[in-house]
């Protein structure tokens, strides 16, 4: 059975590193894996997604509406934008963090309120202040690793040796902080 994970956020938030580590882990565990992302224009602060599908044999690398088992969102409004892609019984892990789009910055629009409550009312949702947690660790760029930890727990992938994967694929100087961030994420899900 193919599982589908949709990572959503704003260009520049680090969805690509998190998905890279995830696919390496899934591959080592023996899954067939496909991963898809969009480069270019949208990376400049636009809405971005990274899509990961794994199972015995995966065909399409892209997740369609109603197909994701899990959405991991790096930004509040982006969670809402991509909810259509979640299965009705799927789960959401979201970073309690707002990045105002330029129309909001310039005052043409206001940041919409109450989005998280609406999402919570529909599906099992875990809200993590991942950006704040990473800043607390003195490593704001580890926000994506906090979310990776939560993702691993949500998908029941804790048996994979993530420390080894991180040691082999991230900068040695960040390893300790990244592992701390990873454990913070793990613990947010029961």
């Amino acid at each position: 059975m193919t599982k589908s994970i949709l990572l959503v956020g704003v260009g520049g938030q680090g969805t690509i590193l998190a998905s890279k580590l995830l696919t390496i882990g899934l591959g080592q565990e023996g899954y067939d894996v496909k991963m898809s992302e969009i480069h270019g224009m949208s990376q400049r602060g636009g809405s971005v997604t990274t899509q990961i599908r794994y199972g015995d044999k995966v065909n399409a690398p892209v997740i369609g509406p109603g197909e994701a088992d899990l959405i991991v969102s790096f930004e509040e409004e982006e969670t809402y934008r991509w909810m259509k892609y979640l299965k009705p019984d799927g789960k959401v892990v979201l970073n309690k963090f707002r990045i105002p789009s330029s129309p909001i910055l310039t005052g043409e629009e206001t940041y919409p309120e109450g989005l998280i409550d609406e999402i919570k009312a529909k599906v099992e949702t875990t809200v993590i202040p991942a950006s704040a947690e990473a800043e607390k660790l003195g490593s704001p760029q580890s926000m994506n690793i906090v979310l990776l930890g939560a993702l691993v727990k949500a998908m029941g992938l804790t048996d994979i040796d993530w420390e080894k994967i991180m040691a082999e694929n991230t900068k040695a100087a960040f390893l300790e902080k990244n592992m701390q961030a990873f454990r913070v994420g793990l613990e947010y899900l029961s």
Partner: protein
Amino acid sequence: MKELMTGNEAIARGVYEAGITFAAAYPGTPSTEILETLAGRYKDDLDSEWSVNEKVAVESAIGYSFVGGRSFSAMKQVGMNVAADPLFSFAYTGANGGFVVVTADEPGIHSSQTEQDNRFYAGMMNIPMLEPADGQECKDMVIEGIRISEKYRTPVMIRMTTRICHSKSFVELGERTEVPKREYKRDIWQYTTMPAVSKKLRHEILERLKVLADESANSKYNYAVMNDGAKIGVVTSGISYQYAKDALGDKASYFKVGFSFPVPFEKIREFTEKFDKVYVIEESEPYLEFQLRTKGINCIGREVFPQEGELSTSIIKEKVLGIKSETIDLDTGKIKERPPVFCAGCPHRGLFYELGRRAKNGKIFISGDIGCYGIAPLPPFSATDTVLCMGESVSGGHGAAKAFEHYGTDMKAVSVLGDSTFFHSGMTGLLDIVYNNSRDLVIIMDNRTTGMTGHQNNPGTGYTARGENAPAADITAIVKALGVKNVRTINPLDLQEVGATLDWGLALEEPGVIITRWPCALKKFTEDDLQEFDVTRHLYQMDKEKCIGCKMCTKTACPALRFDTEAKKAWIYEPSCVGCGICAQVCPKDAIVKVK
């Protein structure tokens, strides 16, 4: 050994394994990482170059092939328009050393100007085309492409799409084949396109097509996947094959077309005759559908599937089986589009801020170009009127200036483009401006790299694709050599300097050039950058007492700025601020202060 690779990485692996020794390309989403991988991972195995544009890239590879070496080029779909001229003629002369060219199309237009389907080029050029559906096929088809190219002396095209380029899947690695250079013999009846020669070659191309049709008919990349009891027949290619399999599973049988020009008609006919209903599932234009219809093969295509945007598993499920995926539908009207923005510290911000202010009077026509500054037409800058294709800003600005002059219109034409775009095809337009004397003001935003595609070197950076030192092209000297007398170079982070120089340039009644020179904020700075620019990361903070909530700073659309709607004060999100100081310069109350 298996490795998880993007389609682009797999193409590069194929280039390596095929024994290709020369690759040339110009960056363009979604094709960029092909040459990046060649110039990185396979740096020492072959000669890989960033060319100034796609035409130059293909011509370099053609010359390499003529004299007997195996060569390769890759580009995005619109890049092929630029390279089409040499490719059409190369189809006539044919290759000596094997030659493969990749076109990376963009159904869905994620980062492009058009949704063009370059499969039609193969038919128009009469060259064989392969269409991979995953990473493994990407790799294998380069090797197969080189075999076909050398056997039939023809250029070979590989057609990818965004989801093939940027999706990862497992690829089985093989060894590299090293081959000696083929012999080159001078033969003007083969390698020139004098009309008498072209007539002969034209005939040969058509003869060649007949044998290529046999090659396609027998290709292992054109095959049927039969499912017992399946009532639906599907003819498909590329990524659409993957969507179709997920959507229809064993309810359908599939004919997967991997060698898609010439089309293997008889094999497809044999397949389709087994079904009452045959769907052609493909993205963009109805390429296969047209082809099948010319041979009287009945199929359902564009009357049910969309001709715009990307296909998906759910679209196919809905159109073929009538099953709509269950979704969670929230009130998406609540959230607005999130347009891309200039990054914090982007050197384009200052220029467009000042240019946009001046354009508010409606008397400036700003001809834009391809690059990150393709978002300058949007608010809050509203500082570009048109965007078309690489280099058009310059020649289009020239045309507009001529029209204003002819009709006595009180408007000034301005062209804006980046350094790499200027090298690509802005230089020729600028020569034209000088030669035909127009009043266009050209602004070249030199951010010391090819920014939007992810920081590739170009002739101005001082480094080659493989990171070796190269002479850095001097834009000022080039502009002067083209004959422009009015040239100024400025720091785009200094708004006063930007404003004063714009006023100077806008008042010129002859050709003028302004060069803004500051490195892209996301660039990995070189030694030269560090010597020339103060790129130390500064930090600015808001003095909340002084802030009056006027939102002047947020009108620079910097992603590091925030506005607290309750306190009615702006503030700076420190992890995002790189300290360019633009917001501090626009603040009327000096509330934004440098703290580091």
